[in-house]
């Protein structure tokens, strides 16, 4: 039996919470149940419960992706703020 507590944790009756194993933000990473250490949750134990009818669509081409702070599929330069204001250039796999 789970409860969504303090708008952040999914807690069972033993007080353990759903956690991303190893605190690794990787595709296909397992979710398991872990204790809360010293009364404080870690970020891998915190979840937003977003109802499907309220989930925002992924930003499309030309729209700002607020999560990453970049406009989707809009080419850009990356310019150094040092004196010469050089541009990042890709030389094969080296930058």
């Amino acid at each position, binding site marked *: 039996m789970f409860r969504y507590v303090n708008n952040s944790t999914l807690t069972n009756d033993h007080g353990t919470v*759903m956690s991303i194993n190893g605190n690794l933000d990787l*595709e296909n990473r*397992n979710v398991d149940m872990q204790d809360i250490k010293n009364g404080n949750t870690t970020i891998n134990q915190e979840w937003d419960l977003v109802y499907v009818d309220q989930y925002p669509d992924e930003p499309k081409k030309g729209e700002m992706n607020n999560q990453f702070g970049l406009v989707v599929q809009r080419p850009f330069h990356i310019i150094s703020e040092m004196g010469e204001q050089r541009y990042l250039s890709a030389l094969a796999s080296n930058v």
Partner: protein
Amino acid sequence: MNIRDGRCLDVSGNKDTEGREVIVNNRQDSANQRWRVVYVDKAKKEPTKGLNKEFGMWVNRPFYMVARLPFHRVMEAISANNIVIKRWRKNVTAQQFFFDGVSKTIRSQQWKNYALEKKSNGNSANLGMSSTVTSRWW
């Protein structure tokens, strides 16, 4: 209570689990021996929609469980034994879950008979799913 010997109905072992046996036992006045008689015509039905404040979830309203790690991946049921995080994909019901107001479990929108539970094999603390009502685990 049995008026002949004073013994009363008792939830065996004081364990609040689904399918638990009820026995007749000496009176101890503990919570597992206290009962409420509710007449059928007065019984409240479990809500089939709206916010369940005790559990913090809306009943029968599908949701994503979104991680707060930087990529904001969502939980996905890849099998009954495994719940993992993956990138959000539109209309993928394996990434959607709902709170069932009757069983008080979180169920998969794709496999609606399956509820989230902690897998109990060995020392594993993995989160998985089960189709049995005892997914109301303790």
